């Protein structure tokens, strides 16, 4: 059932537990089954016939955030993410699937987005902008095709991100467009659940190719990671917005006014550890005059997940929140006034943590920070 290569990896776990104190779910639950070592031991027992396939076992595997910090911490180089990904595929095929994920799958299949909203609502965030930016929807031959992702398109709390992005790009004279209402989920949450994403891939690829854009710029690190790792060659460059903005700020002179705040940067797992993009967001922050960048202890490859990774928020919102609370405390420990990130999911979970803690700390996307610092803005 588990391929021999994956079984070799499972057996290679020395059980030293160096991964455990790094694992967000273990730190919150303080029990072995919530640790990477425990999850691997469960899978080994399953493969060796010492444990039956069960809902409880599946639940432990699906509780993994796929943040992959365990992989960084493993002295034996065990491919933990590969093990958990394969395990989820097998669990999904066997029908052992947490029910919230079943609903998520149905929503994505029926509406093309994670929120289950009508596809017509995908451009609500741009309502006030449609007159200013008539090229916003499916213009052919644009230099940049902006792929916004479900979270920025459909969660009003983070509408500010796509708005900031188009304002900055427009100021810099970049021709851009979006897939508009035809954009569908990239498939990331399905992949994270061990499900195939053929339909999503086919739908997006057809739309993207039709527009013949040169660059695909994604607002969401999870979309970025999925396009890079799981889609076939798309015939266009794939950039994350932070990489694009960093280059834009360096090449075009967008006048920026001081933003005299103490800012820490939270590395999103999908952008940092999983895609290797650490510098671009920091370059952007350093380009803003007066901004003081302070690093948290857990940063870059060792950054701590916001709790929004994988599908944990759908399965166990309370656990996800406790992880966000821990990350918030790490930002507070370095005296940050602003947590900047480059992922709408991270920003949502951290902003909710700040609200729960009644903390005087603001959570902002780096694009939002640039827009705040821009000397000339549109006033809408």
């Amino acid at each position: 059932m588990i391929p021999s290569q994956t079984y070799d990896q499972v057996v290679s776990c020395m059980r030293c537990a160096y991964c455990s104190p790094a694992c967000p779910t273990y730190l919150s639950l303080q029990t072995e089954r919530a640790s990477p070592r425990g999850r691997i031991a469960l899978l080994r027992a399953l493969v060796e016939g010492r444990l039956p396939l069960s809902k409880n076992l599946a639940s432990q595997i699906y509780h993994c955030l796929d943040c992959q910090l365990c992989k960084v911490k493993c002295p034996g180089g065990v491919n933990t993410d590969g093990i958990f990904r394969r395990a989820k595929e097998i669990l999904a095929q066997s029908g052992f699937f947490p029910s919230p994920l079943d609903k998520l799958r149905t929503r994505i299949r029926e509406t093309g987005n994670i929120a289950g909203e009508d596809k017509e609502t995908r451009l609500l965030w741009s309502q006030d902008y449609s007159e200013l930016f008539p090229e916003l929807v499916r213009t052919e031959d644009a230099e940049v095709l902006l792929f916004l992702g479900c979270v920025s398109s459909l969660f009003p709390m983070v509408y500010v991100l796509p708005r900031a992005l188009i304002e900055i790009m427009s100021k810099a004279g970049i021709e851009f467009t979006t897939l508009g209402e035809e954009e569908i989920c990239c498939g990331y949450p399905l992949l994270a659940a061990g499900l195939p994403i053929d339909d999503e891939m086919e739908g997006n690829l057809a739309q993207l190719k039709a527009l013949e854009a040169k660059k695909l710029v994604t607002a969401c690190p999870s979309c970025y990671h999925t396009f890079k790792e799981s889609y076939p060659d798309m015939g266009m460059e794939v950039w994350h917005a932070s990489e694009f903005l960093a280059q834009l700020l360096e090449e075009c002179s967008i006048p920026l006014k001081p933003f005299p705040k103490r800012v820490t940067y939270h590395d999103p797992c999908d952008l940092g550890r999983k895609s290797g993009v650490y510098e671009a967001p920091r370059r952007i922050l350093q380009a803003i005059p007066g901004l003081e960048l302070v690093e948290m202890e857990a940063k870059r490859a060792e950054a701590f997940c916001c709790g929004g990774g994988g599908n944990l928020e759908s399965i166990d919102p309370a656990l996800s929140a406790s992880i966000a609370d821990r990350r918030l405390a790490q930002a507070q420990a370095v005296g940050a006034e602003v947590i900047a990130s480059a992922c709408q999911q991270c920003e949502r979970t951290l902003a909710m943590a700040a609200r729960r803690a009644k903390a005087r700390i603001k959570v902002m996307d780096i694009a939002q920070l640039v827009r705040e610092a821009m000397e000339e803005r549109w006033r809408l």
Partner: protein
Amino acid sequence: MDENLLRELSQIVGPERLLTSPEDLVCYSYDASQPTLDQLPGAVVDLLSAEEVAAILRLANRRGFKVVPRGSGTNLSGGTIPLLGGVVLNLARMNQIIEIDGENLTATVEPGVITDQLQATVAAKGLLYPPDPASSSVSTMGGNVAENAGGLRGLKYGVTGDYVLGLEVVLPTGEVINTGGKCFKDVAGYNLTQLFVGSEGTLGVVTKIIVKLIPPPEAKRTMLALYRQVEDAARSVSAIIAARVIPSTLEILDGTTIRYVEEFKGLGLPLDLGAMLLIEVDGPEAAVGEEASRVAGICHRLGAKEVKVASSEEEALQLKEARKAALPALARVRPTTILEDVTVPRNQIAPMVRKVNEIAEHHEVRIAIFGHAGDGNLHPTCMTDERDQEEMVRVRAALSEIFAVALKLGGTITGEHGIGLKKRPFLPQAVGQARLAAMVRIKNALDPNAILNPGKIFMERDR
């Protein structure tokens, strides 16, 4: 496990902290020892106080079930595997640092405190808790006490036991006792504190620990010496100490380990090396520079091909890179990594390394060696696949021979990992019948019903 028994356990800890699902039982069936020897417990209880531990031990005596205390389960001896089933006492949640006493220079902690957390907390107050087992990021203080854990700084600063001043212990029969305390001198009766240190969870359950702290050294200097011959490296180790320099770190990597490290990390190390020494001296700023040049001089004189002395913290990190990569490099070679542990008198390091190489070659198994040369404490590390029965026969034969050689050279079968389950067959040979019998009498006196961590240290035939 019996329903009535589970109900009684639940009355002590509440249903939330009594774990009985098949998945939870699998997750407490192992520790970090290899090859694996998983055994399921009947139940796991998460404990929060000495009173709860005592209540469970009393129940265990009354109802005759076995009990295995456990911290993070990072021991390498099989010490927390519930060999005969029973109840695993998970002490990891008793994790409060109760007090840092800046006047007496002591810390009082619960057993579930993570070693690194204690170190970081005392460091923030300008103090040092020196024992530094490699697993300190995850190991618990209770586990460190139970195993008398060592580490890299052992040569100069000693091991866990050297810092334990007092303990609160629940005896196997359920009485809670306090041994020692904050007094640095205390000869009121037997030294029970040190009896429990290293007792591997067989004599009592430690529920509170008082350790002494020291002021940290002002400065340190890091060096790396590369040798063609392991004998030259070993002679350097003895010569450094004979020259009255006690380094805080004196680590050795043998040629095999160096080649695996080079393959893994590409640090540019020569492939014809027989050994390397990582040396660190610490102390007052004025003294470390002078000690470092004396050490470098000795290494050169005794045949080191190259000696590097770090002139900055960054360079020091570079020099430590190979030692840090030793286990990761070896662990990648084969699916199963058996991290062994023997100690010989310091002047027997070279013969021990040579012998291990011969034994590995003879049995056609892959073994590399690294370890704490200053302590004579070596970790022959066997790279194998526990699923290959035929190879495992050869691995077991090789390891037995290695233990026999260590004893023959005046050494011991374990320096810091403990006996646990894995080395019980070799204990009689290591300590002799009379000493073994004395140990068994202590065990039987304290644990008359044999409920606490049964099957560890002693074979059934020894009891």
